[in-house]
Structure formats: C-alpha cells, structure tokens
C-alpha cells in the first residue's frame, strides 16, 4: 500500500467527520427514554409515536431555533440500571431535553443524573409522587400522580358505588403498590378498612389461589393497582370463580386489550384515567394525525408524550436557548395550550389540575362516567 492511499483515506475520514460534525451542530437532539423493547414494549411504542409526530410537525416548520430536530432513543426495558445508563448516554450526547422515562422506578434514578447534567426531563407516564416530591428543578410530568388517582378511585367506590367491603390487590411494583396504597389511604380517611390487602407477582398467570382467598371475605369491590396484563387475568379469573365484586383499577389498565381479551368479564369494570380525549377539541387534530400516520388509535400515553415533546420544544423556542435551567424556568412560569387543553405546572413540576376521572367498561368500550 503506497503512501498515497494513506493520505487518501485520512483525508476522506476527515471530510466525513467534518460533515458529521457540521450536521450535528445544525441539529437539536431530544432524548426519548422508556421501555422501548421487552414486555412493556407496547407502552414504549406509545411514547415513541407521540414524540415522532410532535417532532415531525416541528421539523415541517423548519425545526426549532432554525435547526432540525433529531430524536435519540433510549431503551431502559423498565430496568433502573439501564435507565441510568441511558441517562448518562443522553447527558453525554448533549440532548436539549428528555421525554421519559415511563416507569417511576426508572424515572427517579435517571432524574438525578439529568439534574447533575442540567437537562430538563418531562415524564409522560411516571405517576409515583416521589418523582417530583424531591423538588428537583429539572423534573416535570404531564400525567397526574398516584395520590390524585387513588383518591378519585377510592371516593368513587365509596360515594358513587356505595360499597364498603373492598379488597385491594397490587402488583408489588413502585407504580402498582404506590397507587394501591394511595387508594387505601383515602379509604381509611372515610373510615373504611380493606377486607383484604395483598400483592401478586407481575408476570404470573394464575391468581386463582389469591382470588379464592379474597372471595372468602365477600368483597363488594376489588381495587387493583397495576397494569393491564395482570388485570385481564384477574378479571377473567374472578368471574370464573363466580365472584361478583366490581373491578376497579387505574390508568395502567386503560388499554383496549383489557376489554378485548377479558371479554365479557370486563363489563362493568371501572378504571381511572384522564378525561376523554375525543371530547377535547384540542386533541382532535392529534388523534386524526396519529391515525393517518400509524394506522391505529392513540394509546393511553401517546398524547401525554406528544404534549411533553411540544412543551419542551416550545420552551426551547421561547427562551431561544438549549440551557436547561432557563428552559425549566420557562416551563414552570408559562401557561400552556396543549392537545390536552390548558396546562400549568406547579413548583414541583406536577400539573396543577388533577386530570383523572372514572371510566366504565360498557358494551365493549371505555365510557367516561359523568
């Protein structure tokens, strides 16, 4: 190999690197983190879709601050360790902000790293109160908190359904048990003690033993803190065992799969979730666009991540900077008109108005309860 070749390749490499650098400097990156693969991959998909649409809309308007917006993905597979790894990667890559994570157990350790790296984080799905209670300036969330959700569920059971014998189950995760505990707190304020309180293991299929034990206590309602795979099984098995208790749960169960797979057993179940997006006129455009782009309906968290991405990008545009503290300040101060209506954040980074209502499974669909 002659010397000439060496120079050629070196020159070529330099040119390529220079182009890459220039390209990078003319883009703004957003980090999106969540369980993109694995057993919660369906939820990760919702995070992806929401952000993709937001970014495409902005890029169609020549991006933000004159630069194109790029997304870098971080898959944490709902494992806190991987979440930390992703966080370091994002800080390194100099992202302008992070949409994520989904699981509270991932958002919490990641937020410390984003805090140290001075990067704003908006979570579209972590509902555990701890995330914002620590008062980190860079943490926000567009979804509500479990203490809000649990309160609403408990009050519904007591006041609307007028049930007093209530069994409580959870899936032993940060989210599920947190939600269940908040519900129990509200129940106890109303002087009601659950007739059964216990946990099940995520990933297991057979809950008949537990449900048989619960059945012994003759509950009128069963509140479950957890997500839809186990909720489906619990509901089905409850009916198979001949239990008539009403099934109540939280946002993790507000998925069409729950109704599709649980079938008739799911009729008459109640689930807390945000108000009907199809009734929010600001959301119509987004819902239509999602159907056109992806051929499916929005999921539970798609709009939240869409809103989060938009807020982040708007804040960057408004402050004309990628500086974390400035962006965070702006997010906190401004009033946001989003696809979910008007949103404002409090000092801790939570949305001011508790956005949870109760939905019922009626006729194979989720119907908002008035």
């Amino acid at each position, binding site marked *: 190999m002659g010397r000439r070749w060496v120079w050629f390749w070196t020159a070529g490499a330099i040119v390529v690197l220079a182009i890459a650098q220039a390209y990078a400097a003319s883009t703004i990156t957003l980090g999106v983190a969540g369980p*993109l693969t694995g057993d919660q991959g369906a939820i990760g998909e919702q995070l992806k879709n929401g952000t993709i649409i937001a970014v495409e809309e902005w890029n169609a308007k020549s991006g933000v601050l004159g630069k194109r917006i790029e997304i870098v993905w971080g898959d944490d597979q*709902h494992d806190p360790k991987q979440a930390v790894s992703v966080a370091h990667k994002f800080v390194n890559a100099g992202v302008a902000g992070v949409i994520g994570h989904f699981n509270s*157990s991932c958002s919490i350790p990641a937020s410390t790293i984003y805090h140290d790296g001075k990067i704003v984080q908006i979570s579209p799905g972590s509902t555990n109160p701890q995330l914002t209670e*620590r008062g980190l300036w860079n943490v926000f969330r567009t979804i509500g908190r479990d203490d809000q959700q649990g309160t609403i569920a408990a009050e519904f059971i007591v006041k609307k359904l007028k049930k007093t014998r209530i069994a409580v189950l959870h899936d032993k995760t940060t989210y599920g048990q947190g939600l269940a505990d908040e519900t129990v707190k509200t129940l106890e304020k109303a002087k009601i003690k659950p007739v059964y309180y216990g946990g099940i293991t995520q990933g297991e299929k057979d809950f008949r033993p537990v449900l048989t034990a619960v059945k012994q206590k003759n509950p009128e309602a069963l509140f479950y803190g957890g997500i839809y795979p186990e909720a489906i099984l619990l509901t089905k098995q409850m009916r198979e065992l001949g239990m008539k208790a009403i099934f109540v749960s939280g946002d993790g169960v507000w998925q069409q799969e729950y109704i599709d797979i649980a079938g008739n057993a799911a009729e008459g179940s109640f689930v807390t979730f945000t108000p009907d997006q199809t009734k929010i006129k600001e959301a119509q455009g987004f819902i239509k666009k999602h159907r056109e782009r992806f051929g499916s309906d929005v999921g539970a968290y798609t709009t939240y991540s869409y809103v989060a991405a938009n807020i982040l990008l708007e804040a960057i545009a408004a402050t004309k900077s990628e500086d974390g503290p400035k962006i965070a300040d702006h997010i906190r101060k401004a009033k946001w008109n989003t696809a979910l209506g008007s949103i404002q954040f409090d000092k801790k980074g939570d949305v001011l108005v508790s956005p949870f209502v109760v939905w019922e499974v009626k006729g194979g669909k989720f119907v908002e309860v008035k």
Partner: protein
Amino acid sequence: MKCPSRSMPLHQRPLLRIVLASVWFGLLSLPLMMELQAPYFGLGRPLMVSAVVALIGLLRVLALQWREASTGRLERLLGASGSAARHLTEGIDQRLLYALALACAIMIPLGLNRYHIDVLTQVGIYVTLALGLNIVVGLAGLLDLGYIAFYAVGAYTYGLLSTRVGLSFWEVLPLGALLAAIFGILLGIPVLRLRGDYLAIVTLGFGEMIRITLNNWDSFTRGPNGIIGIGRPKILGFTFSDPIHYYYLILAIVLLTIFVVDRLNRSRIGRAWTAMRDDEVAAEAMGIDLMKTKLLAFSLGATWAGFAGVFFASKMTFISPESFTFFESVIILCMVVLGGMGSVPGVILGAAMLVILPEMMRQFALYRMLIFGGAMVVMMVLRPQGLIASPRRAIALRHTDSRRPSVVSPLHTP
C-alpha cells in the same frame, strides 16, 4: 468415549445439507413468522430465514475449505488465545505487562466522556461480582444460581444504614461485606449434602427468596419503591459525585479483588477447592474437611458481592428489588463460564465483554438481545472452555473428560 452415531450428517454432500438445513429452518420459522392477513401469507419472512441459514451454511463450507487449504496459518491464528498470549508474553516479565495494563486502566478513562466512564464502572462492578462467583463456581465447583442475593444484601445494607442510621460509605463497606459473608454461610449450611444440580436449584431459590422478601417487607425495605437518597462516599470533605470518581473507586476495589482471589487461588484453600471440585470423595479421602471448604467458598465468594453491592448502592443512590433478579445471577454466571472458569484474566474479559457488547449494540435496539442470545450459543459451541481457560483446566481438558476425571490417567496433572 465419543458415542458412535450412525446418523452422521451427509458430509460427503455439503450443498445438499445446506439446502435441507435452510428448508428445515424456513419451515420451523414459518408458524411464528407468517401472517394470515398479508399477501402470500407473509411467507417473505420465513424465506429470509431460509436464506440466512443457507448463507451461514455456505460461509461455513467456505471457511472449512480455506482451513484445509492453509492448515498451518490457520492453526496458529485460531489456536487457543490463552496459550498464544502466554507464548507471546513468556519473554516479557509478567509484572511489566500488569503495570502496563494498570497504567492503561488509570490513564485511558481521563480522555473518555461520562457515558463511557459509566460503562467502565459497570464493568468494574461486574468484574468484582464475576471474580467472587468464580470462587464459588470456578474454583470450588459449586453451581450457585442465586449469587445475586449477596449483591442485594450488600446494597441494601448500605441503603438502609445510610438512610436510617446515617453511617458513611466507608463504615458500611466492611459491614456490607461481612453481612454478605454471613448470608453466604446461611446459604451454605442447608446445601452441604446436596449434589451438583440440586445445589443449583436451591441457590436459585435462595436468590429468589431474598428478592421476594426485599420486595414485600415494606416496613423494613420499602418494598418495590426501593430506597432513595442513599449517601455518596466522602473522603475528607470531598464527595464523590462525578462518574470518574466512582470509576477510580471501583478500580481500587477490583485491584484488591484480583489480588486476594489470586492469593486464594494459589493457597492451600484454593487447592482444596479445586480438589473438591474435581472429585469430592477423593478430596475427603485426602483429609479435606468438605463442610469447612464449602462454607468458606460460599462466604468468601459472597464477600465480594457484598463489596460490589455497597458500591452499587452508593453509585445509583437508589436501589430497588428489580435490580436483583435471577437473570442477573445468570449473566454473572455467563461471565464466569464465557471467560473461562477459574482463570482470573478470563473472567475479567468475560465480564467486560458481557457489559460492553450489549451497550455497543444499543443502536440495534430491537435485535440486541436476540444477537446476544445467539452469540452466547455460538461462543460456547466454538469455544466451550471459555475465552482464556485457566492453566489447570487447560491441561485437564486435553486429556480427560473433565466431568469425571479418570483417577487412573497418568497424564492428569493437578
């Protein structure tokens, strides 16, 4: 003795084999990959699988032909990397090499960004864990599938003592290791009489029991919410906050571990472990106290997991039971076996590979774990003794079936 088989593949006709193999795999992948709604039932994907298999088959045939065409060159190239490395370095003083490696370990991270440093720190943690497990599995031959439990003990000890009692990192470091060692003994006692694979399931159970208890004992461990706000190490008023600080700390721990493990390996207890691994009955006949040896293996192995756990908790400042699953135990075991059981450099290499490769493959996102699983199988099939087999093992493997080393073989050097 290799079992004779009349159903040897038709090695006279490699092309026919390739065709048959790709048809077979295409058929196997058909049920799962076809889509009834798609045109042509979505047969495109199984056909792709067939094509890939055919390609691999062809590559293999070509590789074999190349090997036959140039035997000498290939043998030298593909020869055992461990012994090759040894050949190369025989001339150089070992200590110079170690000094060079140490210098690299100290200097290189200074030029890397925090993400890479974090990955290297993770490598350090897993190296410590793998070396600890190496004592139990590689040296003493006790198949421990619940090793992660000791890691959890260390982590939670620091987590709890830091947030509830306010003890500092340095105070808890020895405590965590000690507590892990005690748990090691607790695990060892009921399994003393158990044979190989029964031991495996009990250790697996132990690991799961610890994790489930951590997850459910809310009042003590805060259950699935985990422990938050764990203190960072401090020296003379200086708090560890940057990834690079943690890196040097784990580097120190790793060096200590390597030193101690190496000493143990060469000591009487190390020989006792190896004797026990190769043949329990003969070892007992030679006067080795099996109970003490086993318990020592468990507890000493657990100690390193304890150290690693305390470090892990201080680095993450947040721990939850989700980090201590059976799968983690499996990964550490893979590091030990892939690297070469019983050999310290092998285990280090195995740990490094199994941490760095998945991180490097992040851009393949979806296919990452698929490739990982496949790579594990390929690695084992191509090189079952691990990347760098330990010298003792290498000799044993060459002469006998290492599962039941023949007492009669005159070539079997201990």
